[in-house]
């Protein structure tokens, strides 16, 4: 393992000097009680977001979307369509913000980059043998480098859950560090795939490990494993980000992904951020929603707020 002490306080730099010190650090974290974490998330999801709050929340949520297509059947045409949608979510209303990024497989990054030219919408590419992460480090690094060369502004990598669950924290740490280097200037989002980590203690440890190794964002899920993003998992990760900032003064971003389909869902995540990390994190620079169908629901709700009547998907472009 290589220490990345330069950006960390000495306390945290010590934690990354060896496999055993990292393990000791991760096991020394305050535990998470699952029932209590669930209860807190459930309570926050009762927040009533109406009128002006809803309007602000909807636009904020739109601006935070990583509009995603990650299918084996993805084509250049499909990606271009998605990019058009991301640039102008509703062609009839120019006041609607653009999404934050278009999230695609690395081989589609180039297409996306071209389609988004001239806009502020970023290209995010999944890499490192997404979604399973089952490949050699060499392959993962190459995967990343290619995506970056293809124009990806952001890399969404997956951690090696097998290594993590078998206690090889150093291996997971090293991989993240190597990918971070391979990213160059691209931002690194580290996907924990919390649905496979199962316990909140694991989620907390994996979050810490990723942040220590250089993640710019931590992300819940690939979207290929159930459960994907949940409110309590996101809460635990947000609390970890809060703790990390307290020690390092370094703000890490958060991205729940998978299963966020409705405006109601999205607003609950914003509430979570607001009441865990404060308004400072309510920006696309520090919070993203990995989603696909969410955008249209947000658009419909936006129209409902403006027009006063309920809307139909027939009036919103499907992608």
């Amino acid at each position: 393992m290589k220490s990345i002490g330069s950006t960390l306080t000495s306390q945290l730099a010590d934690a990354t000097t060896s496999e055993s010190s990292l393990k000791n650090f991760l096991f020394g974290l305050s535990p998470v009680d699952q029932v209590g974490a669930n209860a807190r998330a459930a309570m926050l999801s009762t927040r009533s977001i109406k009128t002006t709050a809803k309007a602000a929340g909807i636009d904020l949520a739109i601006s935070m979307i990583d509009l995603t297509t990650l299918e084996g059947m993805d084509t250049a045409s499909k990606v271009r369509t998605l990019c058009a949608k991301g640039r102008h979510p509703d062609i009839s209303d120019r006041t609607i913000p653009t999404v934050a990024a278009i999230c695609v497989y690395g081989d589609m990054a180039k297409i996306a980059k071209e389609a988004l030219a001239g806009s502020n919408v970023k290209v995010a590419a999944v890499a490192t043998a997404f979604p399973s992460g089952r490949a050699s480090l060499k392959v993962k690094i190459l995967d990343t480098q290619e995506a970056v060369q293809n124009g990806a502004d952001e890399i969404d990598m997956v951690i090696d859950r097998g290594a993590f669950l078998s206690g090889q924290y150093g291996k997971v740490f090293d991989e993240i560090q190597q990918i971070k280097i391979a990213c160059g200037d691209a931002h690194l989002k580290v996907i924990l795939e919390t649905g496979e980590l199962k316990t909140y203690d694991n989620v907390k440890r994996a979050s810490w490990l990723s942040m220590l190794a250089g993640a710019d964002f931590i992300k819940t899920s690939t979207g290929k494993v159930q459960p994907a993003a949940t409110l309590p998992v996101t809460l635990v990760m947000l609390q970890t980000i809060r703790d990390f900032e307290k020690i390092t003064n370094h703000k890490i971003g958060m991205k729940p992904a998978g299963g966020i389909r409705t405006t109601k869902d999205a607003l609950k995540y914003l509430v979570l951020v607001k009441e865990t990390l404060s308004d400072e994190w309510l920006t696309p620079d520090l919070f993203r929603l990995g989603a696909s169908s969410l955008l249209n629901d947000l658009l419909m709700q936006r129209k409902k707020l403006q027009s006063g009547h309920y809307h139909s998907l027939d009036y919103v472009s499907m992608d």
Partner: protein
Amino acid sequence: MNDSLDVKRTAKLYINGAFPRSESGRTFVVNDQNNKFLANVSKASRKDARDAVVAARSAFNKWSDASAYNRGQVIYRIAEILQGRSPQFIAELESAGVKKAAPHVLEAIDKIVWYAGFSDKISMVVGSANPVAGKFFNFSIPEPTGVVAVCVSNEPSLVNLVSQISAAIVSGNTVVVVVPENSSLIAVSLAEVLATSDVPAGVVNILTGDSAELAPWLASHLDVNAMDLSGISDKNLKTELEASAATNLKRILRTFPDGLSAIKTYVEIKTVWHPQGF
């Protein structure tokens, strides 16, 4: 022909496993049915009552912490010793005017055995695992209330005496027993039984004396948690004692019930919640 003079027993108090005289130096005379002198019995004072409560309080933690199995064996041991000394109790009960004293003593022994056997069943019968909504494990268990003051009737009854004591100590309480004149000799003898069983010092403390004098001090005592008033026959005194016991909200037994009810008077139900999750 035995012409050796009897060595008479001095009837003393029983506090913290020892047999002190009353600090007041007072005694009262106990005669038999024919008004023949039997003993000068120590007449406890309020200070003796105070000492007895201190002894009971200091014995509480260890006794209540003992395993139920252990408490059951200790109480069963009382029955064993009592069985061996039953002729003495029969004689004392007879001299105090109790008819059919022999079956009475056997009944008392059976009572003790009954209570002894309950020690490790109380939790099962009185406690519960509660199916609360939500991811919690929730259980309720009985715990002893603390120090119990027991007022014994002036009508001598070994059955009542041992039942009143056993009902309190079986769950881990410690007791201070106030025994009036007519019941005093069997109580003194029972103290000797207790002292030679394995009952730890202070678990049972016996004060012979005047209930009307002693009980009010126990009723108002803030370190006494419960009170058995079933032995008080004077209705006004009983009402006063209950009202005084309200000062620190003592658990009160007005009449001594059969079966489990008495035991339940001296236990507190403790309910513990804990989340269940990974």
